[in-house]
């Protein structure tokens, strides 16, 4: 029989197809509110205070309707703390009733035995508990006193309710890289799945990134640990820059921003990804004509991101095929050029670039919804982006005083 090339050999790699964008996101992050009961040091969305212009319940349902039409099958709902919205449960139920699967990210504050039972009994809702230390000492230093206890209690309620396979999501820092085995033990104890992700210098993370991001040696240890023990550990593909070490980690090893994923923020602004909340990565707003679909399919920013990207200064590096130049947001918020090395480049080119870029301006993430006294940097001015409809009678000062200002009691 004559050897013939199979039909599949004409197909490009999946990654090549994704890099030029899809008709709709595969998955997206939806920050439901900037309100939060915590004030984590590294919060990527600078959350704390509700924004008076957050999408109403009806507007949220309209977004869900759009996602259903576009066949976005899965959304990650976060914030701030999404469960503090009085309409949270209503919206989650609405989503799952409209062919949009939900995973929501929470610090656990509202995961009571009752809500845990409700979650265990519903299909198509997954839960992700945030935890940044395997001990209260390490965790609470970042997330605040009592937050470890809150998270563990939520996990116990979920486990007791029979909800197996919920996620425990950890942001890797200098202080918890040594606790990887302990994190796995916590996940095993509650029948959960461990997820570890990369710290980006985004939001308030920009202020603590220098002290918190893993050292080069720790980064290597983390990589080795994942290769050895990470078979059932999720990473959200957030360590694709480590492919520069050699063997890539499981995942697409691709920056999905604006290509296969994006962020919808509490006021309806659409950003390339949740680690890039800045007007440079703002594609549009769901309240505009054509809604979310128009933004996803036709915004200038996303069209730009879907054009073939050159590696720039990284093109000639032998690691480039694996690392793809690393994370756009990490480069942007450390003041590095987007066509150069990642600040945590495994070959050390990012470190050199940072040293060389001394004095270069570091973009300030905006908007900043941190609570008064916890705002990013000195003199940070809360900046609102996008169209500003009437504030619905809630003053900004009220929001400063209480992150839940203006919420009416649930019907």
């Amino acid at each position, binding site marked *: *029989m*004559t*050897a*013939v*090339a*199979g*039909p*599949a*050999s004409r*197909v490009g*790699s*999946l990654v090549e197809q994704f890099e030029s964008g899809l008709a709709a996101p*595969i*998955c*997206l*992050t939806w920050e439901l509110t900037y309100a939060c009961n915590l004030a984590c040091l590294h919060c990527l969305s600078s959350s704390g205070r509700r924004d008076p212009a957050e999408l109403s319940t009806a507007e949220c349902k309209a977004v869900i309707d759009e996602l259903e039409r576009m066949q976005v099958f*899965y959304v*990650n709902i*976060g914030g701030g703390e999404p469960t503090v919205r009085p309409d949270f449960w209503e919206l989650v139920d609405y989503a799952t009733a409209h062919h949009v699967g939900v*995973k929501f*990210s929470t610090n656990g504050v509202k995961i009571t035995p009752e809500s845990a039972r409700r979650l265990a009994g519903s299909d198509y809702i997954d839960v*992700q508990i945030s935890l940044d230390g395997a001990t209260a000492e390490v965790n609470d230093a970042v997330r605040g006193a009592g937050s470890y206890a809150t998270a563990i209690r939520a996990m116990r309620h979920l486990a007791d309710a029979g909800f197996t396979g919920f996620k425990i*999501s950890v942001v890797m820092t200098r202080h918890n890289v040594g606790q990887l085995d302990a994190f796995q033990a916590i996940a095993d104890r509650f029948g959960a799945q461990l*997820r570890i992700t990369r710290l980006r210098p985004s939001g308030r993370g920009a202020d603590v990134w220098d002290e918190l991001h893993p050292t080069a040696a720790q980064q290597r240890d983390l990589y080795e640990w994942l290769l050895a023990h990470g078979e059932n550990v*999720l*990473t*959200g*593909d*957030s360590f*694709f820059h480590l492919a520069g070490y050699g063997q890539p980690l*499981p*995942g*697409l090893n*691709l*920056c*999905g*921003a604006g290509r*296969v*994923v*994006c*962020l919808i923020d509490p006021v309806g602004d659409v950003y*390339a*990804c*949740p*680690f890039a909340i800045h007007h440079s990565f703002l594609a549009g707003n769901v309240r505009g004509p054509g809604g979310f679909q128009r933004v996803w399919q036709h915004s200038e920013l996303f069209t730009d991101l879907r054009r073939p990207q050159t590696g720039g200064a990284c093109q000639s590096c032998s690691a480039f095929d694996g690392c793809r130049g690393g*994370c756009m947001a990490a480069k942007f918020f450390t003041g590095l050029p987007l066509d150069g090395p990642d600040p945590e480049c495994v070959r050390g080119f990012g470190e050199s670039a940072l040293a060389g870029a001394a004095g270069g301006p570091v973009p300030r993430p905006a908007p900043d919804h941190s609570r008064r006294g916890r705002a990013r940097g000195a003199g940070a001015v809360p900046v609102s982006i996008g169209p500003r409809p009437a504030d619905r009678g809630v003053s900004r000062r009220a929001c400063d005083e209480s992150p839940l200002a203006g919420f009416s009691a649930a019907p």
Partner: protein
Amino acid sequence: MADTPAAAAEPAGQTLPAEEAPDATVLVEDLLVEDLLVEEVSIDGMCGVY
């Protein structure tokens, strides 16, 4: 599907038959992923999501 570049790199084991053989077994190898018509991706495996 007959010879493909990746087939040469396969570890010992049965390769895809050049023609249909009802009693042959099909071995789906990660190494062949670029030549397969179906590729599975983890819903968690995309960067840029919580």
